[in-house]
């Protein structure tokens, strides 16, 4: 019900916005006037039908179908509307989605998420749904259906740069996770064994975590700059005050707390009876660690990695401020030039990346979860 009301309300807001060029503020175009009637009528019909199907609380499958239908209608309207509006506008004109579109998108996506969670799909189904969604988005982009939108026009000349930023962003987020895991997992095991180390290390790491990211990045710069000037060898492998290295290092530092704390929590979550039994049947310390403690603690450890991945994907944006690359470059360029589309070009992929990472990690965590009922 809520979705339908909100959906109807969002129709009142401008759906698209048409601007004379990339900097000026655009003028809103209402939902029903966005495209010629032969396109907008079926699209609106799909959208409305989908939202109506969403009303059927007790039939989650139909609700999912409804959400998919309304999303399809929404994107169809967006694609057709952009083309139609551009056709009669000037050469530098830009069409971008406006508040109405974003609200409808959020509502449809929420409907989809709500309906899907109602179905309680297993990890495989979720993986399949995710893959399907990504394929759809890829298809949509590949087919050029959205190429009339301003964000796509912003993208076109920067194709190589965006790809580069993407790879850099992945390196920052995943690379720092990898290094943090390499350091943090053994540290977590050590902390689990020696309570004194744990009492000293965990508060220190959580203090590190509280330092605002910009400050952390800032403090890294002189530190690494100094190392770079003192040790030419370090400079040779790219350690310098500005750029990738301080961003990477700051991200690793941020990642340590979730990795170490969750490793400790995971190892601690094992029932004492199980640990006792493992000792009782004569396992060595190492055998216990690798055969019992790590496999049983894995879901909690992975939860730590999930936190890190989502957090780092977001924090990596800030690397853009200190020349570390990644999508942040576009965000801050866009903010400087007050070019909304450029901001979106940086922000949207970041959000998408964080979400995909979160969903993938959730699926992994569920797979490693011991079967229900087998827990003691």
């Amino acid at each position, binding site marked *: 019900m*809520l979705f339908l009301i909100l959906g109807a309300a969002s129709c009142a807001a401008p759906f698209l916005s048409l601007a004379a060029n990339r900097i000026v503020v655009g003028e809103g175009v209402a939902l029903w006037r966005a495209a010629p009637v032969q396109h907008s009528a079926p699209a609106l019909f799909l959208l409305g039908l989908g939202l109506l199907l969403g009303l059927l609380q007790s039939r989650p499958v139909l609700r999912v179908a409804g959400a998919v239908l309304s999303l399809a209608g929404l994107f169809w309207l967006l694609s057709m509307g952009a083309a139609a509006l551009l056709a009669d506008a000037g050469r530098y004109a830009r069409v971008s989605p406006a*508040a109405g579109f974003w609200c409808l998108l959020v509502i449809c996506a*929420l409907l989809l*998420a*709500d309906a899907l*969670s*109602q179905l309680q799909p297993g990890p495989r189904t979720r993986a399949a749904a995710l893959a399907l969604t990504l394929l759809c988005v890829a298809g949509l982009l590949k087919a050029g259906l959205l190429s009339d939108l301003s964000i796509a026009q912003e993208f076109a000349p920067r194709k190589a740069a965006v790809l580069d930023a993407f790879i850099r962003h992945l390196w920052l987020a995943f690379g720092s996770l990898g290094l943090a895991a390499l350091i943090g997992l053994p540290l977590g095991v050590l902390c689990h064994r020696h309570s004194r180390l744990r009492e000293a290390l965990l508060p220190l790491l*959580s*203090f590190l975590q*509280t*330092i*605002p*990211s*910009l*400050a*952390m990045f*800032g*403090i890294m*710069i*002189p530190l690494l*700059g100094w190392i770079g000037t003192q040790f030419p060898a370090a400079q040779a492998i790219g350690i310098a*005050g500005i750029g990738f290295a301080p961003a990477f290092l700051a991200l690793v530092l941020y990642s340590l707390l979730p990795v170490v704390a969750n490793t400790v929590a995971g190892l601690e979550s094992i029932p004492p009876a199980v640990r006792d039994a493992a000792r009782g049947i004569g396992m060595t310390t190492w055998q216990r660690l690798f055969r019992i403690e790590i496999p049983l603690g894995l879901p909690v450890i992975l939860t730590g990695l999930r936190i890190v991945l*989502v957090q780092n*994907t*977001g*924090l990596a*944006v*800030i690397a853009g*401020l*200190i020349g570390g690359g990644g999508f*942040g470059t576009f*965000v*801050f360029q*866009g*903010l400087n030039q*007050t070019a*909304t589309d450029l*901001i*979106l070009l*940086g*922000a949207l992929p*970041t*959000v998408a990346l*964080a*979400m995909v*990472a*979160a969903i993938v990690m959730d699926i992994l965590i569920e797979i490693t979860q011991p079967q229900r009922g087998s827990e003691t």
Partner: protein
Amino acid sequence: MRTYLRPALAVLLLALVVWPERFSWLFAPFAPQGGPVIYSRTSLLSLSLNHLALVLIATLAATLVAVGMAILVTRPFGAAFRPLSRTVTNIGQTFPPVAVLALAVPALGFGEGPTLVALFLYGLLPIFENAIAGLSTVSPTVLDAARGIGLTRLQRLIRIELPLALPVILNGIRLSAIIALGTATIGSTVAAKTLGEVIIAGLLTNNTAFVLQGGLIVGLFAVLLYDLMVQLEQRISARLGL
């Protein structure tokens, strides 16, 4: 050790903010040849106050709204919205705070406004999540006893449920405030007057002294705020015998 460290850091922070010139000797080696050592376009004190005010307002507003919503969805009549609210929080928390800030600009323009809105919106999530967790883990025996001795719904909420959920809610407020403090720093890229301005100015003019003093002040604020909240939580938890 802890007992000395805390006031020492607080005094250091205060001194840095109020008399930054006194620390010129410390930052001078990092400043470019002949360049300014201490940021002086706006006083560090007013930047700090503005920064803290932003965080305070956003966090307070987020607390009010988030706790209110959590109360609604934990009442019988709001239970229908609970799964949805969980979906929203789960998805919302994957949004990077910086992205929320960046996305607020197209919608609201530059300045304090979008920063405040972004801080508020992002701050809702941890508080909401923790408030729900806190309210729904109050022992059913205690709630049954409260009903049994004749407390009304409102009395149960105010006298029993909220006080018992308080430590968990405070934990959420702490997360939220720390994130807000960090995000407000970045808010200076959208022209909000915060301490981030000092760091950004340092980055733009290659003046490491600026970067360091800004970073140091913000870092100290964060660490002290975190510590203060943790102590508050511990004190309250201890009183509850938890």
